């Protein structure tokens, strides 16, 4: 849904113009198994991924597990209050350790198969019948660690053992949003969708409002598609994010069923911010949509080349949530409508790109961010890519 300049001539000086001469990727990148395997290996196993919130696991022994590609990740708060990340797999015979998506009160991590036992710091503390096994030392057989960092209240993991810091990936993005105390926000409702479309079609869909007039009449009334501007591009190399903002028409002040809200703006919102919705794609799979009075996050996870899982979360100011008349449905409901409109055209796009006739099309003036994502994607896929 990101904003796009009214026409190509108003693209800011220095912004990319590759969309005006570029061609979209070939259809097979949206349905080929081998392409997805490469994407998961290069993007999902080697980047910082947003997987949760600090407040989901506030106490020692609280945990959550997440599936990323073929990997299961365990996040647990240890006895020092630090969040630790591990591959959710026993070092013995490779059994998955914890089945539950989340829980609390974990004192140790016990494998359900042969009861190898690990501390919350990952050290192997108990094993039976290993004393005379040659060359086996408990200290060599702790859980495989996974890098975890916290920023803006969100927990991020990186499966690459040689990962750089989160700021190397998203530093300039965090600079942009640092004036908002996002760590204080708390989650409202979450919607989960399974969509019969490749995850990249969802990113591309989020990255343009060329489709808003035909597909989203409500959204287009509140924030007309030609408003706003884009000022962050993957291909600029200044952090792995892209996006910009759209501007409210008239006196509309939020994306809700009516276009109006009585919720006060979030702390830190300037006069200018209150007229805008900021839309960012965080590489590879997060859509970060900051409204005057709430933050919306989409996470798009590939389940197969032609199927994706989307988690759509809404975060509000806890002071506002504490009020007796707090009702997030005006925001959640319009986005449910917009989401379903988007998933529908994305599913049609999935079907169409399977056609043997289609081998890529042209970008319109309104699709600079789609081009930017695709160009960066192709660069990242490199020589062995699609």
């Amino acid at each position: 849904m990101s904003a796009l300049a009214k026409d190509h001539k108003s693209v800011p000086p220095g912004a990319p113009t590759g969309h005006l001469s570029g061609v979209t990727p070939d259809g097979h990148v949206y349905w080929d198994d081998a392409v997805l395997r490469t994407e998961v290996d290069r993007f999902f196993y080697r980047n910082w991924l947003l997987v949760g919130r600090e407040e989901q696991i506030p106490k020692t022994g609280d945990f959550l597990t997440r599936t990323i590609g073929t990997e299961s990740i365990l996040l647990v708060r240890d006895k020092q209050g630090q969040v630790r990340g591990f591959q959710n797999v026993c070092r013995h015979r490779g059994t998955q350790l914890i089945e539950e998506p989340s829980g609390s009160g974990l004192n140790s991590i016990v494998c359900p198969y042969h009861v190898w036992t690990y501390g919350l710091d990952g050290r192997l503390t108990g094993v039976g019948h290993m004393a005379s096994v040659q060359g086996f030392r408990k200290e060599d057989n702790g859980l495989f660690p996974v890098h975890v960092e916290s920023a803006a209240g969100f927990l991020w993991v990186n499966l690459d053992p040689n990962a750089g810091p989160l700021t190397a990936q998203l530093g300039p993005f965090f600079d942009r949003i640092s004036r908002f105390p996002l760590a204080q926000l708390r989650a409202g409702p979450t919607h989960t969708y399974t969509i019969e479309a490749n995850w990249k079609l969802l990113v591309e869909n989020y990255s343009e409002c060329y489709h808003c007039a035909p597909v989203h009449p409500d959204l287009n009334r509140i924030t007309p598609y030609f408003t706003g501007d884009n000022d962050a591009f993957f291909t600029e190399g200044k952090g792995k994010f892209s996006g910009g903002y759209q501007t409210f028409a008239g006196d509309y002040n939020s994306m809700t069923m009516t276009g109006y809200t009585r919720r006060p703006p979030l702390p830190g919102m300037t006069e200018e911010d209150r007229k805008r919705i900021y839309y960012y794609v965080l590489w590879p799979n997060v859509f970060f949509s900051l409204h005057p009075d709430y933050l919306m996050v989409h996470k798009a996870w590939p389940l197969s080349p032609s199927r994706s899982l989307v988690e759509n979360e809404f975060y509000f100011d806890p002071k506002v949530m504490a009020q007796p008349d707090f009702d997030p449905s005006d925001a959640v409901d319009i986005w449910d409508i917009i989401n379903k409109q988007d998933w529908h055209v994305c599913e049609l796009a999935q079907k169409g790109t399977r056609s043997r006739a289609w081998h890529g099309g042209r970008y319109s003036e309104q699709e600079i961010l789609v081009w930017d994502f695709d160009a960066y994607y192709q660069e990242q896929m490199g020589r062995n890519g699609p």
Partner: protein
Amino acid sequence: MSTAARPSAPTPPRRERPTTAAFRAVDRPVKEAATLPGWMFSDAALYAEELRRLFQRTWTCVGREDEVHDAGGFLTVEVGGSGVLIVRDKEGVLRAFHNVCRHRGTRLVEENCGSGLANLQCPYHAWTYDLTGQLRGAPHMAGVENFDKRDYGLHPIALETWRGFLWVNLDPNPGPLSDHLGALAERARPFPLERLRKAHRVVYEIAANWKLVLQNANECYHCPGVHPQLVKITPYTSGEEDIHRGPIFGGWMDMVEGAETLTANGKSVRQRFPGLSPEDLRRVYYYVLFPANFLAFSTDYVTLDWFQPLGPERTRLVFDLYVDRDEPDPAEDAMEFWETTNRQDWHICEMAHLGQKTVAYDQGRYSTEEDTVHAIDQYYLHQMGLVGDSDE
């Protein structure tokens, strides 16, 4: 519970083509030949190649011309895994296009059929095409370099009609439909195909590879065990094959004395097609049009099967039953007969599919009642370039 040794070998992966010997064992005289190896009925890579080499390069009968009767009438179908749109333009010309927008590859039309289409507008970004496929409207493209709307019309697909039936071919350079029909055109001449109306359509989904469904339609070796009601009217050893030149294979079965048409009791409650010879009035003709269609002619109705592979392990089958357009009888008896027969067949095809996948099963042998299946399997291997001279 036999304790005899099983043939060895779970399926080797196909990429290396290690089974050339197995293919050659199929491509021998029928009495010496082995059947297709079991792995060929569930392999994803083979399936993708079948779509490309067979289904996307052949004429497929997708319905009747009168389903798209007026200007603006349309039909959407899937052929070889690819979306196809058939529309009658404002001049009354039938046209077929890939059902995909030239912009970002979105499926254009979702509905199976409809009427009153004035133009084709993509639901995503509202690119608009006229019914001849020309791109008429594409907002915000004026500043895009080297973009000329004339270069971005819908991709056309070859379309032909034959006696009321509608055919498409996704091959950009297809041979004429008459080459595909071959000797069948002459064999079908006595039947009033241009006068048909659709009395019934049933769509089945079968948990079996498409080749098993096709093989099943081309032998009656299974009929005594599977179709007791069918063999009462047409004994399974009756009849003869008269066309066995790919892509057409088939022949006829003889009805028992006194039977007028192929239904449960053999009695026709309809006007039998005028102009049939005494021979034709005693026969039911069956022809496969490899790989996607199967046509059958009885004395007072015609059936058309359309095989649509949905994946290596799933097949959709569209079954149409046609009668003369002036025939008042709704042909419930014929449909009921085929509904029973079809379901018996799909069940046994699903059982066959499960068995192909076991590690124990490799290749079997053809009975002397299965020479048509053998001929089709050989034709299949040649078309796929797996034995002999490939056409590619």
